[in-house]
């Protein structure tokens, strides 16, 4: 049960951080005219195609005691980042980034530009236009982003294994726990956990598809395409 609670806590933290960071990032990606934008778009989408072990490997190097992130964390908090819950959160945020940002971009881009012009003509600055026009019209995208980052974090395995290791109560998430139990031939327990995870994933995705049929369709086309190609 510890493992399930830990996964839930991790998924909640990651979804919250991704929402807070994803909104400005997606806004910029949707509306910026910068020429080099495609580079950042590619970086954001990388976790979709990169094997989790590769992503985990680099994150682990960065977070290690000699890595830039690890050193920085050490200076501020007095302990390393690797094999901690915070380290896990950091890695998971990177890993689920496209699942939060892509739906947001799609829904921001689908807001009629004329509405933005209308807001400007009526005296609204960018901030007001974002909070009063763009965001309310992108609620389905926001829900999708939240739900997908939550679900994706709940189910991650490779990155957690690379970055978090397997410390009970700290970094042992459900998926690691299941793997562990299968390794030690505790099939009944593994089965129970797997069922719980399956049920959660299924209900979460049903919510996404149910709540925003329209937007969901677009996002899925865009999200799953890189996978199909893989």
């Amino acid at each position, binding site marked *: 049960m510890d493992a399930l609670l830990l996964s839930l806590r991790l998924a909640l933290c990651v979804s919250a951080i991704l929402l807070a960071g994803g909104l400005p990032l997606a806004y910029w990606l949707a509306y910026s005219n910068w020429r080099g934008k495609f580079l950042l778009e590619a970086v954001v989408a990388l976790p979709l195609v990169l094997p989790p072990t590769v992503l985990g490997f680099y994150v682990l190097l960065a977070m290690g005691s000699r890595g830039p992130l690890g050193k920085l964390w050490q200076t501020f908090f007095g302990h390393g980042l690797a094999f901690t819950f915070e380290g896990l959160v950091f890695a998971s945020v990177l890993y689920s980034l496209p699942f939060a940002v892509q739906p947001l971009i799609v829904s921001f881009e689908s807001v009629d530009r004329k509405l933005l012009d209308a807001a400007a003509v*009526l005296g609204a600055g960018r901030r007001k236009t974002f909070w009063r026009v763009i965001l309310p*019209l992108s609620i389905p995208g926001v829900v999708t982003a939240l739900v997908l980052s939550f679900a994706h974090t709940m189910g991650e395995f490779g990155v957690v294994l690379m970055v978090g290791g397997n410390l009970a109560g700290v970094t042992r998430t459900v998926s690691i726990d299941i793997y562990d139990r299968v390794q030690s031939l505790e099939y009944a327990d593994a089965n129970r956990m797997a069922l719980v995870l399956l049920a959660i994933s299924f209900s979460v995705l049903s919510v996404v598809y149910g709540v925003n049929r329209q937007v969901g369709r677009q996002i899925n086309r865009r999200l799953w395409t890189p996978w199909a190609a893989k």
Partner: protein
Amino acid sequence: MGGEVNLATLTERVKLERSRAGSPPFVLDISIQVPIGITILFGPSGAGKSTVLDCIAGLVRPDSGRITVGEKVLFDSESGVNCPTQARRIAYVFQTLALFPHMTAEENVAFGLDALPREQRSTRAEEILKAFRVDKLRGRKPAEISGGERQRIALARSLVTQPRVLLLDEPLTGLDAHLKATIVDDLRAWNATQRIPILYVTHSREEVNALGERMIAMDHGRVVGEGTPMEILEAPRRTRLAQAAGFENLLTGIVVDLREADGVMRMRFSDSVCEMEVPLGYAAPGDRVRVAIRAGDILLATSQPHGLSARNVIEGRIVALETRGTLIRARVDCGVEFIVHLTPGAARTLELAAGVRVWLVLKTHSCHFVEE
């Protein structure tokens, strides 16, 4: 002293060039003045009308020029002034209206009133909704509101902020004539007290006639005429403008002879033996001229008509009949091809079909010269 100093006049002098892939660049180069009241900006699509409005609103930045409303400079390339859109106080009603779909009519109208205290905001919103007779719809969202009423709400939303200028980009497209007229009346009534310049973009001749007043004609990014609709539309000077003004037939021909006593001349169309009598113009035999004829000004007969005052009776054959909404567009080959508009009833009664022999009847004065 003397002369009227009109403090609120909108003046715009801008140049703008935009390259377009695969076609020659679009160049906008105009200088216009819009006094208080409604001024129509008329021209075919692609003439640059909307770009003119976008420049005034600050949505598009001209390459150079100067835009002012009264004393206030909104844009001046020389002194580097470029007032941002949200600070210009220019009301702009888009063709799509761009009402915020997630807000009620009242919330839409109150959107531009954030600077006011709450009570004042709702009083002002209510006042203007009343002025445009849509106060009963204040709690409804745009999707639940019918065409016509949506236009009224869009007008109310843009005017509630007490703008310096009102820009209207074909706002009444798709409404029937009666609805249009009542909305325009309400707009006029509102402007009788506010007295701001209103620039009304349209490519519809029917709307121009309904609005009357002052008009600026544009084509290819330039102003090609200014004056009353009568002056401009009855005497189109440029070929493209003639088409926009509803001339479906543009024919080139050679002057055969002049009959000055009758005030007419005969012309023969290029590549045909077909001849026609047209009003006397400044031309000599052998000159090339171009005439424009409205498809609705041509009569069509299935047997050769006699005893007519009309001077041109031309024999031809129907090439095709095409249904265009509530009218039939007939293409008739008389050596040159004419377009004739008929009602479906007339086409039925005359039993018209492709291949049928017909006679076209044209009054001399239905033939308008256009410059080449």
